């Protein structure tokens, strides 16, 4: 927030609480009355903060507190004297940011400030000359002024705190990506490195051997490149080319690309003539490919893969059911998170991509899973407008 925004915000707040120049004049007037009370109030303010171990630990030494006491004195002087201008506000604004920087929980500053407010009001009352008449107008003005100050400090604290949190989240996200990619890249790099070692150091090296190792290097470099391509196309997915297409055809072509391995029995109930949907055939193929591969991966010692499809009034639904290991209940909510994986291989992008593709065509992905029994992934896609008629 710049000076001008800050000043506008303050004016807005002043208006809201009904602050006028009369209030300012009343506060200016009592300044000489309370001057002698200020040092004790400042000591009390920091004693209050230091009472809490969590607050005390942010202060590195007593010298720091001595310096802060000087700042507080300046703050109180400005509070009573004004002017309530940009410089005044900037000083308040920095207090909140500073608290975030040193890691002082706002609650301690709030508690101490509330004590200080009470102390100042009391000091005004005690030193109030009776001939001046009613004190309450002045103490109300003082309270309002401190509330306004506190609102600014609180604003700046909240903003700085949020910025800090977002920074932390960004770092965590980078860490997660690095961790997920690390394994997938280190494995191909491992082959490249060990092949290079062999080619450089082997005692006996036939031309066939050399060829073999060079083709391993080539293969693994391609694999590493695929990893990076997958990651970047996940971060920036291509726009879907929407056409009126048959879901069943997509499922069948995915099945051709990823035929279930030996030991897995395939059960299909994929009726022809279901209504067409408005989607990108390639992307929908990726969806079913991912679900079929996942289902097969979940059955390392064999099982049954069942694919069924049916339509209702508004949607076509495809179900991919396996009789595999099932998903741990605590993982169910995480399976579509990017980079979440329980497999030995893969980055954990499959279901995240699936989810993203379906979201673009208003499709839905639902999962039911029983540990040790298997899982069912159901994909529901809205029927293209008018498609019901042109079966």
């Amino acid at each position, binding site marked *: 927030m710049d000076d001008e925004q800050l000043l506008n915000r303050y004016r807005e707040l002043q208006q809201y609480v009904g602050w006028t120049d009369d209030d300012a004049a009343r506060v200016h007037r009592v300044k000489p009355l309370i001057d002698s009370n200020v040092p004790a109030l400042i000591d009390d303010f920091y004693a209050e903060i230091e009472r809490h171990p969590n607050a005390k630990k942010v202060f590195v030494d007593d010298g720091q507190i001595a310096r802060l006491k000087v700042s507080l004195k300046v703050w109180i002087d400005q509070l009573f004297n004004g002017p309530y201008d940009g410089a005044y506000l900037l000083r308040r604004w920095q207090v909140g940011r500073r608290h975030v920087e040193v890691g002082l929980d706002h609650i301690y500053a709030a508690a101490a400030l509330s004590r200080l407010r009470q102390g100042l009001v009391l000091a005004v009352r005690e030193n109030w000359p009776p001939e001046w008449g009613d004190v309450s107008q002045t103490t109300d003005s003082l309270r309002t002024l401190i509330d306004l100050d506190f609102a600014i400090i609180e604003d700046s604290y909240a903003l700085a705190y949020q910025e800090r949190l977002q920074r932390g989240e960004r770092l965590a996200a980078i860490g997660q990506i690095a961790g997920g990619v690390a394994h997938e890249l280190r*494995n191909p790099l*491992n*082959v490249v490195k*060990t092949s290079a070692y062999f080619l450089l150091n082997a*005692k006996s090296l036939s031309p066939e051997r050399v060829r073999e190792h060079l083709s391993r290097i080539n293969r693994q470099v391609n694999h590493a490149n695929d990893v990076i391509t997958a990651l970047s196309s996940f971060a920036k997915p291509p726009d879907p080319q929407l056409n009126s297409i048959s879901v069943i055809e997509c499922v069948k072509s995915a099945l051709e690309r990823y035929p279930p391995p030996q030991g897995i029995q395939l059960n299909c109930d994929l009726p022809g003539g279901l209504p067409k949907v408005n989607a990108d055939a390639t992307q929908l193929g990726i969806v079913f490919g991912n679900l079929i591969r996942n289902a097969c991966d979940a059955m390392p010692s064999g099982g049954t893969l069942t694919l069924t499809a049916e339509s209702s009034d508004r949607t076509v639904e495809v179900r991919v059911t396996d009789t595999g290991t099932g998903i741990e209940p605590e993982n169910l909510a995480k399976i579509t998170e990017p980079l979440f994986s329980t497999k030995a*291989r893969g980055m954990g992008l499959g279901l995240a991509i699936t989810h993203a593709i379906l979201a673009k065509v208003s499709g839905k992905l639902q999962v039911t899973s029983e540990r040790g029994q298997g899982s069912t992934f159901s994909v529901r896609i809205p029927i293209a407008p008018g498609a019901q008629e042109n079966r």
Partner: protein
Amino acid sequence: MKDNKVRSVLVVDDEVDACENLRDILVDLGYRVGVARNGLEAIQELHRADYDIVLLDLKMPGMDGVSVYREIKRQRPETAAIVVSAFSGSELAEAALEEGAASIVAKPVDVPQLLTAIATSLARPLVLVVDDDPDFCRNLWQILNGGGFRVALAHDAEEAHWQLAAKSFDVVLIDLKLRGSQSGEDVLRIVAETNPHARRVLVTGLRESSVETIRSLVDRGVDAVCYKPIDVENLLDVLSRRSNSSQTGQAVKDA
């Protein structure tokens, strides 16, 4: 029958190319090399043949590397495990070390570092523990494995015989009293026949009653005697001594 010259390594990794590369490198250096693509294959291969060292990937489909190592320890506790993983700093890697893996090598593998790790593991003296108490055996395994030894276990004289015939041991640790018909004395005889260079350390809980027996055994070539409950530091001290004289035994006995 004993294959003392050719050292053997089993490479366990689900990445075929990674396995084949390590096979090529190690075969070129004169090792006998086996390859397994997952935990189950590794365990089956260890049933079939003996390996000095297992190079173990951590993240594999099915069993992870740590579970595989636990099974290896049950079957072939003398097989040293070196973890080779892209997750060298992970909890799984920590767990492998906790289980007693010799070392961890990060992927991409620095081959000279891996060869050093293999050489270091092979340089560890091979100890055979012959004791019929499985808990005591497990404890000794942990202590000695942590103390820089490779440790084979035998629970009776027959198992000991089988082990002694198959491998050459640097030290044999024998409990005098064993289950079954044969005693520790019989094992001592087998050691003398099959592994004449192995140092022989007696472990016994009988302090007074068999003084005579022990004295006569020391005379017949037992290098040291340790009394139960075992003083761990004393035992490690005894085992790491290179000397083969019966003086050592006497000293330990008197200590």
